[in-house]
């Protein structure tokens, strides 16, 4: 994979990222890196700055200070769409779906944006709207829908989908661009225990089969600790801990942060 650079540079990396909203420091000098083919967890109480860090990494928000690198190259000034074309995909805490499209069309659009991008323009002169979809597009789309158990919903418009299903669709859409690194913001909220297990299996499979790196934000701390190779802990915009799941679990600073938050105790100490 990393034959060109000799050392393996992280898929995506934040260096000294600071974000201020007026007087509020939402992120303070945060460093974080996601090596290839690994799962990195990011946890922290409500308002810790996790979603803000996602916005910075994905290019939707410019940091007040600090840099973002993808595969060792500085992309701080690059647009969200440029980063997406470099292989970054993400989901949102509040799903950003397209209510005018069906479930399947979400995946089709994402697939085409990655594999047959020119069709946005060429379809207009080649009557692309009236032709059948190519076989490999159909195959890949159907496989993704099946993997995330969306086949039954394929032709439904997305407004009115339950939250859990919307999340699965966001993941399917993100995977359809064959990303190198995938950022997931609370993918399991809205899913029941069985669906969460299935999702974890699917995601682990994606990492193993396609070498995709995951950055995972979760309130379900057990899920993160179970899946991740490395876990980072944010509190009030500051990174208070980093290490293997076992190390983080044992870190007194983490326990203190979660005890300070109103609902985290039994999750971290379990």
């Amino acid at each position, binding site marked *: 994979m990393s034959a060109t650079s000799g050392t393996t540079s992280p898929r995506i990396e934040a260096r000294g990222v600071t974000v201020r909203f007026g007087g509020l420091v939402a992120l303070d000098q945060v460093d974080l890196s996601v090596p290839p083919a690994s799962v990195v967890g990011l946890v922290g109480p409500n308002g810790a700055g996790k979603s803000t860090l996602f916005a910075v990494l*994905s*290019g*939707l928000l410019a940091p007040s200070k600090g840099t973002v690198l993808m595969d060792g190259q500085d992309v701080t000034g690059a*647009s*969200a*769409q440029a980063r*997406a*074309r470099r292989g*970054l*995909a*993400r989901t*949102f805490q509040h799903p*950003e*779906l*397209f*209510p*005018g*499209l*069906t479930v399947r*069309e979400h995946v*089709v*659009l*994402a697939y*085409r*944006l*990655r594999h*047959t*991008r020119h*069709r*946005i*323009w060429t*379809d*207009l002169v080649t*009557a*692309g*709207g*009236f032709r059948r979809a190519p076989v490999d597009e159909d195959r890949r789309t159907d496989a993704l829908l099946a993997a995330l158990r969306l086949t*039954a919903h394929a*032709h*439904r*418009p997305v*407004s*009115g989908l339950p939250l859990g299903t919307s999340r699965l669709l966001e993941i399917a*859409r993100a995977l359809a*661009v064959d990303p190198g690194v995938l950022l997931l913001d609370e993918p399991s909220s809205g899913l029941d225990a069985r669906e969460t297990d299935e999702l974890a299996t699917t995601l682990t499979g994606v990492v193993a089969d396609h070498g995709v790196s995951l950055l995972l934000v979760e309130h379900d701390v057990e899920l993160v600790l179970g899946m991740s190779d490395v876990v980072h802990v944010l509190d009030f915009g500051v990174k208070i801990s980093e290490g293997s799941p076992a190390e983080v679990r044992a870190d007194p600073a983490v326990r203190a942060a979660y005890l300070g938050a109103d609902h985290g105790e039994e999750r971290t100490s379990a």
Partner: protein
Amino acid sequence: MLSYVVAGLALGAIYAIAAASLVVTHVSSGVFNFAFGAMAFAVARFYYFLYVEHGWPLPLAAVVAIGLFGPGLGVLLYAVLFRHLRLRSPLVRIVATIGLSVALPPLVNLVLGQLVNVTAPGLAPQPVAVFRPFGTVVDMNQLIIYAALSVVLVVGTGLLRYTDTGLKVRALVDSEALTAMSGVSPTRVSLGVWAFSALLAGLAGVLVAPTAGLSVDGMTFLMAAAFAAVVAARLRNLPTAVAVALAMGVVTSVIQRYLDADSALSAQIVPSVPFLFMLVFLIAHALRGRAGDAPAGGALDRAIRAEAAGAPTATNRSGFVAPLVTLGVVACLPLVLDDFWTGLTGTGIALATALLSCTLVTGEGGMIWLCQITFAGFGALLAADLTANSGWPPLAAVLVSALCVVPVGVALGLLTIRLGNLYVALVTLTFGLLAQNLVFLRDRFYNSGQGIYMPRPEWALDNRTFALLALAVFAVLGLFVVNLRRSTAGLAVTAVRWSEAGSRTLGLGIVPVKVLVSAVATFVAAVGGGFLALAYQSALPDSFNPFTGLVWLAVLVTVGARPVVGALVAGVAFAVLPSVFQTYLPTRWAEVPVILFGFGAVMLARNPEGIIAMHARQLRDLSRWRQSRREPAIAQGDLA
């Protein structure tokens, strides 16, 4: 000099009252009232009805019209319309009030009778007393206007600052959800707000009538000018709105001191002053990135809003049968109808092509552009100019001029890309008004209202051949739009429309998509304009008035802004129905179709899909229901 300032302040004070009304309703109910001019007209017309036509004493007529009828109208409209709008998408909110602005004036005319060129009295007793302080001239009407603004400001500020209701209004501004939860009824407060703002609309209408004329055009112009002050105030800041309104009035008046009153330049510049103001402020806001949609309260409000915002519950990938049948029926019309009706049908089909651009930009792209008619006008004038003055073949002229107009549309698209929906609507309307004043009314194009002669191609001189030619062009462009919608580009357009963050993180840039939509829509509009000119055999600047464009939009959304045949049905209906009413019913009923179209758009508040889409869905539901009775097992899971 002083006398110009005195006159300007009077004009500015009327603008200020209008702007205050617009700001108050926008801030407290989230509805930007495009029907303000129509409401002002209704009240002013009723005042004229009482005072002049029925000889009521002035104070009584004023109190009944402005103090009772106005607020009553506001309350009524709140109950039947505005109440439903708060949680609708910006598109529906804007289009529904536009529908009201289209329907209300002809309705008033139908009930109270049409007036032509009357001199309307203001609130001053006749004959109007004139005073001469400090070597300048002030008349009683002007004094009353100053007094009216002062009273409005004092009472308004007092209400907002010091009363319980004012507190509730300000709470409502922040969050309806919170207000509702803490026990204050938003309904009662909104009712009060609409009554008050309708009173202001009526007052402004009565005050402006002596100078601007008691006409829909005069009132609509007043409203459009007040828009400028409201935009300057970023839609919410009342003191700024009032200050800018006064400044606009003064500038408009003082500028006349330096212009030759009879010159063409003066006729173009003077009415453009408010729109130039608006342009300056819009650019300033856009540059500072402060012209997004006003943030809508907290997370709870946003959640409620998104739920009710008219997100489609079904995607329209409708079949081919209904469109083909419609196309076939329209194609038969020129073959069976006589020459008069065939001519109207041809005009309707040409109009349908222009409406197709609204289908694209609004129905598909979700952008509220109110200047498609202006692009059509550009296309028409340029094509006629090339044909008549440079001897081009007509069809080539239409095609080439449409291509020449495209960059204008693209530039406007790029300019408005970062603006919220409401600002886009306002910018495009302003652009249309400016184009009307500065381009369409130039002698070279206007030609005392006759426009520029536009000959048809020699082989399509008769109405029948022309109608079929126009239909063929519509069919080609319609197919192009259908293909666009079903293709990757269509998916991309829909994606960008509903979530910019979602699109960008998929690698889909916003700019190329919006440029594509605006380029194609502009081209289609300009071709439609060219064909309208061919239909009339003249490029008539008057037929491309932006306010007529609002009626176009009302017709289109009434029929359905998404289906391509919606544009065809709307265009033909718009061109043919008024003549049907005129021919077979008493003359005064001629405006009834316009009233119906307006109310059709108003109905959008209840049913955001439009008529065709609604009935198509009902038909589908019906057939599905029958099918499911026949084969219950199969019909179960498949909702496609």
